[in-house]
């Protein structure tokens, strides 16, 4: 039974999920099925949450019990899991007050002819540029009491306080470290070691320049933008001629001839390129043609692969949900 029941459940659910794409939408069967499936997935999702939590507690609990290397981190993980869960459960009225300042007080709800006080709050004082701080609005009758220039906003819910002032900065900081690694990687890895690497290099430079308004760089920005074609085509031609010269000295005259002809062909393409093609236009060409062609091929391949895998799972040939057993 343990081997047969899960594939049957999986197959039936899979067929139901497929059916809704073929059933007419206004039928009672469709509506009932959709409601049942939605409710079921919510229940399964909640169970998944509990399983995830149990797994987290089990794994980190074991590390703490065995005093495995780095067990202190497990203590921190479990403590903060409990703390964040608690902050979400306790009352919305519990939380710290933050110092704030009223920005403007005016009637800006014309439909109801109602005054609102626009106030900002941050952890360390306030900023006048509201779009950089947490902005809240309160009806004037509910606005907090003024104490000199500063006011105290009503309590910020503890969960939102944690989210805004702990989770947000930490998440952003961790991800922003990528920028530093990527910059050193560009220096170490992006070198014209081969013909393919050179193509990648030139495309990436075009995309990098096309993604920013390079003309705003003082002194050289406007020149770079005005000579986009010269920079790109001349880099390509010089590189190909350099490769041709190497082939010539290695006495590979046919390869040398092919490369020289390629350089001439690029020169012809340059001649016929419209004058208004700048880095942004080149970026669009790369993204819309070579990129699309490659992506479309990958997408079709991936979809055919997932179709085959889905059929195998639904028909019970593959059972990843049983850990590959059965």
């Amino acid at each position, binding site marked *: 039974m343990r081997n047969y029941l899960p594939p049957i459940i999986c197959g039936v659910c899979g067929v139901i999920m497929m059916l*809704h*794409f073929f059933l007419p*939408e206004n039928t009672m069967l469709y509506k009932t099925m*959709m*409601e049942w*499936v*939605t409710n079921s*997935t919510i229940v*399964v*999702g909640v169970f998944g*949450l509990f399983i995830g939590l149990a797994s987290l507690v089990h794994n980190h609990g074991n590390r703490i019990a065995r005093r495995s290397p780095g067990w202190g981190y497990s203590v921190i993980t479990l403590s903060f899991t409990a703390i964040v869960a608690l902050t979400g459960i306790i009352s919305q009225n519990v939380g710290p007050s933050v110092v704030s300042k009223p920005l*403007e007080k005016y009637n*800006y709800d*014309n439909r109801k002819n109602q005054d609102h006080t*626009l106030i900002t709050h941050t952890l360390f004082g306030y900023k006048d540029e*509201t*779009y*950089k701080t*947490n*902005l*809240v*609005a309160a009806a004037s009758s509910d606005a907090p009491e003024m104490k000199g220039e500063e006011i105290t906003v009503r309590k910020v819910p503890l969960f*939102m306080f944690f*989210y*805004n002032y702990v989770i*947000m900065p*930490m*998440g*952003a900081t961790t*991800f*922003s470290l990528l*920028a*530093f690694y*990527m*910059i*050193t990687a*560009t*220096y*170490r890895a*992006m*070198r*014209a070691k081969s013909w393919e690497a050179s193509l990648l*290099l030139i495309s*990436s*430079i075009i995309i*990098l*320049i096309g*993604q*920013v*308004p*390079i003309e*705003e*760089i003082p002194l050289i920005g406007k020149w770079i933008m005005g000579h986009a074609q010269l920079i790109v085509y001349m880099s390509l031609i010089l590189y190909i001629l350099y490769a041709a010269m190497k082939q010539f000295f290695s006495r590979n005259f046919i390869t040398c001839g092919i490369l020289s002809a390629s350089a001439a062909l690029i020169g012809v393409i340059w001649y016929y390129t419209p004058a208004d093609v700048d880095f942004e236009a080149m970026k*669009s060409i790369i*993204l819309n043609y070579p*990129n*699309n062609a490659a*992506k*479309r091929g990958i*997408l079709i391949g991936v979809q055919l692969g997932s179709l085959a895998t889905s059929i195998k799972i639904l028909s019970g040939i593959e059972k990843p949900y049983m850990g590959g057993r059965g």
Partner: protein
Amino acid sequence: MASGSPNIYGPKQNFWQRHYRPLIYLLTLVCVVGGTLTRLPLSLSVSDATQGVFDTLEKLPELRAQDIEKQQALLAEKLEEAKTNSGPDLQKEIAAIKDKIARLQMNPKGVVLVCIDFDPSTEAELGPMAHAFIRHCFSRGVKVLVNTGGNVMSQPLAQNIISASATEGALMKKNKYDFMEDGTDYVFFGFRPNAFQLYLQMGENILTAYETDYAGHDLTLLPIMRGIRNFSDIDMVFSISGYVGSPETWITVGNTKFGKPVALGQVAISASDYYPYIQSKQICGMLPGLRGAAEYEGACGSPPRATGRMWAQLYTHTFAILLIIIGNLEFFFKGFKRRKV
């Protein structure tokens, strides 16, 4: 020299070769800080992908008017048919069409569903585009429905963005708008597990998919929901996502199944994955990364949240290009010796 990774220069090293990594980190920091502190205006041309999103939103009232006209023509046809055949099925159909017309007329400027599906790690790129798009909706009188699809951590972020956008209207230089009220001008549904199923259920009936909003209010009691029942009452979907798979779900459900215009907001690194969908017209446009957000801000006159951050991106990209050039010059001058990287 930072430890833990192989040295690319071998045993004989000069100062740069010994310390290039911390020096690059330091200069990157200077670029980011310098860019963040730069307060100059920035002119950006608007790409076709961004323009597609902007134009679709601008045309929503027109689309809705066309939809109402279509339904009225269908109603007239059915009423004509009812003169010769007064069966119960036909009467039900007529009632359904009348109901549909009434719902469409409740929101003549249109209704947009915004799916905010990112966490703090990608907020720097995606937050500004969410702000700019929602503000654009409010300034045009479009009703906004907000949900989160793939990650429960997006919920508080979405709540921050929607409530800030609702109050910021009066501070905008262009396209000012009144204070937007929760439950009347916008609603935030929050998170439910299994996005694909959820979106399908929303296509059938939003009230059974969510039942309450994020704050726990019964959806049936909210004024905004009087004119919105399912996807047929929504004119456009805008999915802002930092996760793999989320936009594909919207393309499959929102566009392929329910035929609604879908627009995407993507981090720059994933944006190239979705250009094929623009060409095949499965999405009406896309905001690619911070640049897309800055272009959109320029197009709709929002406060320069993303445009301000573009300076940091400009300096850092320029620095990266310089490093590539320096690295390659170094490579060429030293000849094609094989090195371990």
